[in-house]
């Protein structure tokens, strides 16, 4: 007896994506849920140090912080460990 098992097929969302109306608003996920990008104020900040560079992004709804990202680049993060052999 041969058992035929149907394989799940991938769902194609391209039609829905392509049918997006020009009036659809781009949204951003925030602590207040999805909010139109246009409603948010966007700020960036760079923090530099000898050991790292940090790029911060912040989105505000009026004056309330509702989303933030930080990206830390440790370009010289930890001092090297020095190994020394004592002379006789």
């Amino acid at each position: 007896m041969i058992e035929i098992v149907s394989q799940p097929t991938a769902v194609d969302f391209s039609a829905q994506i392509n049918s997006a109306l020009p009036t659809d608003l781009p949204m951003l996920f925030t602590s207040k849920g999805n909010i139109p990008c246009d409603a948010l104020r966007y700020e960036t900040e760079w923090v530099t140090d000898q050991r790292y560079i940090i790029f911060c992004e912040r989105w505000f709804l009026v004056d309330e912080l509702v989303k933030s990202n930080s990206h830390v680049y440790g370009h010289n993060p930890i001092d090297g460990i020095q190994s020394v052999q004592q002379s006789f």
Partner: protein
Amino acid sequence: MANSAGLCYSFKTELLDGIHAFGASVVRAATTADTFYGALFLASGSLSPSTTTAYSVTSEVPNSGTYAAGGQAVTNATAPTQTAGTVYWTPSGNLSWTGFTGTAFDTVLIYNNTAASKNAVGVFTFSTQTITAGTFTLTMPTNNNTTGLVRLT
């Protein structure tokens, strides 16, 4: 050609590869590289190179988004390398957490997750960060003898 004194460059590499044990060591279960993790800690914590010996949940940031206690495995695709007498090792991938909300953290601890005691490797601090429903990324330095994450000079 004269003789010259100094710690052998090969020895420094072998230290990072776990070849030598001048003191009591552990029985290793395999000859493969260990797995290392990176975990985030609050600015109110007290981690330091002199006092931190192993991973502990004390002062770790709470679970949020893709962040779970213990942190994230670091990609280790490049073995320790020696250039001009300095042996260095750097994770070959970045650490990143998404959908993450964390308040006032400033430290990443890299530790050995294969070791039963979760032995610490290094403490890396940066300015205090607060992330709201966002992404936190720690981009690793260039893996060379002057900027690598772990360097024996």
